[in-house]
């Protein structure tokens, strides 16, 4: 046994010795050192050796890697911080095409918490605000509108648009559209939910057509906008404060260590269908400055409870990010989203308070997912944060009752804890209010001017570019434009032979 161990020891020494002498780098070093040591006569010395310095050359050590990467990382460990930093620089930084960026993020299946806009669990609004890192703008429980809407000019077209809207409602009721009179009693649960949805969509469509066609004469963005029906919007994001689900060792990737699997941020996936989506070529203006104190309150939005405790579900799903249109379309920014589901059955079964929370949360999450999807189309993601805030408007209506929700997305780095990233998002959600009371003798009664003004302000808000800021700084090749490869072979014609005929 001792002899065997000695042989193994000698063998290992020989292997090391052999390796040293076979590598060319070491051979050169040995040769130069050996030549320096031997004192040759002057006629045999090589000219090259005279130039060699007598002192040993200084060895160049690589730069010392800092403990943490540049930026603030809060309570993250060193390994976790470098993992995210490498993702930003090495992976995302090198991809310049939008489609490839989205593919890099979504080309995997993983266990993600479901985050649908329609959530019928009780007390769900607080949970949705915490997961989206959002502060609800309200004063003494009263709804506050963003101040930018005061600058929207509706006085010139107001009377004409009002007349068009009333005519549209009356015509829609007069036509043989199946039993629209049930909409007059919003709390009547006898109407089937899908019937109510269909009727709501028809009425909403006529109202929107009337307003947008009447106002497009004086508002350029309505002339070139795109309006689509039944659009799927999906987005995924990672949120700090929710632990990742436990993955058995046999299913873990060998490239990722245990520390990376135990991070305090979990994946959420939201997907839903928007009934109408208005898109423009420029983004909506920001509602509030990102430096405002309301946008720096991320410490108040930390998720307190595990989503499982609040009745949420998670599943193994393919991640998805879609903004509702094919990449390459000139109108890339969502102006307004309109949803018609009113959750009437929930109102009957669970009561007014429960319905109010779920209904408000519906508009909030719709706007949030719209903002996140828009940001991904412009090249921003959880590795490359936003350079300017994204804004979205959602109108929640069945043709008679309207609720308006506005959202401003300030940061996509929701996976960082509040100490590292204090930026928070802001939402404005109005209470549900009726546009008109009802119809008698085919005439609209109790038309609400306040609600109609808010509706016009939403649709007529002019989109604008951000002063001096490039809208997609992380993208070189826009989606739709062909990617030209660098390695194109050039054919050089040295001699052209012309044959006699």
């Amino acid at each position, binding site marked *: 046994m001792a002899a065997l161990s000695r042989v193994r020891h000698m063998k290992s020494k020989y292997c090391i010795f052999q390796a040293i002498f076979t590598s060319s780098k070491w051979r050169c070093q040995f040769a130069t050192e050996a030549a320096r040591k031997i004192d040759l006569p002057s006629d045999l010395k090589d000219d090259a050796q005279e130039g060699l310095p007598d002192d040993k050359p200084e060895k160049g050590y690589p730069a010392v890697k800092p403990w943490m990467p540049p930026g603030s990382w809060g309570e993250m460990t060193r390994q976790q911080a470098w993992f995210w930093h490498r993702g930003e620089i090495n992976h995302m930084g090198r991809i310049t095409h939008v489609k490839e960026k989205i593919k890099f993020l979504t080309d995997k299946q993983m266990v993600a918490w479901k985050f649908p806009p329609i959530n019928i669990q009780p007390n769900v609004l607080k949970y949705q605000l915490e997961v989206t890192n959002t502060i609800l703008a309200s004063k003494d429980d009263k709804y506050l509108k963003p101040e930018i809407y005061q600058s929207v000019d509706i006085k010139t077209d107001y009377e004409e648009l009002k007349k068009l809207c009333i005519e549209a409602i009356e015509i829609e009721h007069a036509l043989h559209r199946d039993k629209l009179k049930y909409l007059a009693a919003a709390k009547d649960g006898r109407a089937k939910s899908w019937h109510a949805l269909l009727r709501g969509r028809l009425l909403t469509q006529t109202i929107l057509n009337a307003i947008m066609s009447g106002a497009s004469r004086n508002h350029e963005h309505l002339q070139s906008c795109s309006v689509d029906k039944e659009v799927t919007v999906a987005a995924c994001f990672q949120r700090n404060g929710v632990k990742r689900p436990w993955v058995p060792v046999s299913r873990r990737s060998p490239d990722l260590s245990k520390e990376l699997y135990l991070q305090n941020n979990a994946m959420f996936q939201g997907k839903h269908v928007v009934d109408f989506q208005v898109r423009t070529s420029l983004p909506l203006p920001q509602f509030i400055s990102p430096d405002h104190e309301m946008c720096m309150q991320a410490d108040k939005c930390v998720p307190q409870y595990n989503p499982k405790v*609040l009745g949420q579900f998670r599943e193994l799903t393919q991640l998805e990010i879609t903004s509702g249109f094919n990449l390459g379309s000139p109108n890339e920014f969502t102006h307004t989203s309109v949803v018609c589901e009113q959750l009437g059955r929930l109102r009957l079964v669970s009561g007014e308070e429960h319905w109010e929370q779920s209904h408000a949360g519906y508009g909030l999450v719709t706007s949030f997912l719209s903002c996140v999807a828009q940001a991904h189309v412009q090249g921003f993601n959880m590795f490359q944060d936003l350079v300017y805030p994204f804004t979205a408007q959602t109108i929640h209506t069945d043709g008679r009752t309207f609720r308006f929700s506005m959202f401003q997305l300030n940061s996509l780095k929701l996976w960082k804890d509040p100490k590292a990233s204090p930026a928070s998002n802001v939402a404005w959600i109005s209470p549900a209010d009726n546009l008109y009371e009802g119809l008698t003798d085919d005439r609209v009664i109790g038309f609400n001017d306040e609600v109609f003004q808010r509706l016009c302000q939403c649709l007529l808000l002019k989109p604008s570019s951000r002063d001096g800021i490039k809208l997609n700084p992380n993208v070189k090749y826009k989606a739709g434009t062909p990617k030209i490869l660098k390695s194109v072979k050039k054919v050089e014609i040295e001699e052209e032979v012309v044959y006699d005929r």
Partner: protein
Amino acid sequence: MTRLGFLERIPLWQRTIPKYPLHFKGDPQLRVYLPLFWMKMVQPANKFPKNIVLFKVHPQMSKLDIAQYLEKIYETPVANVRTEIREQQIMAPWWNRSKKQWVGRKVVTRIPEKYAYVTLAKDEFVYPTPKKTEKSSDSERYKKYMKIREGHYKELNEALSVPAWFRR
């Protein structure tokens, strides 16, 4: 052997509920006396809101059964119920060879347990933490235990008249 036979080995709270026929409108109402349903309140490991309570329930109870159990017997209105099945791994008994599985070096069997997260509509409940009794510190208890153990060994050695060389 009684009429139940092998079922007597399984405790009452683990027995499965026998299948009963579906009820259609017009049929006489089914009545089950002393059903095998049970619910046990459990202390949650994580932080819970005040209006959510964790129960361990019979595996065959549905969400409606859980809600009605609380509403009719304890008169507490329930807003929502979310159920979860967790598998408890235990060492496989010798008589249950068909349901065992190798996990590393151990042979385990998995017993499904059902937990229910019940959201109360009006009430609030916080699981009470038991009061800590005045206990001596760990080191003092260890010394006490060792003294008692020494005393037992002394008695045993004297009873068996063990020579001093072999005494512990």
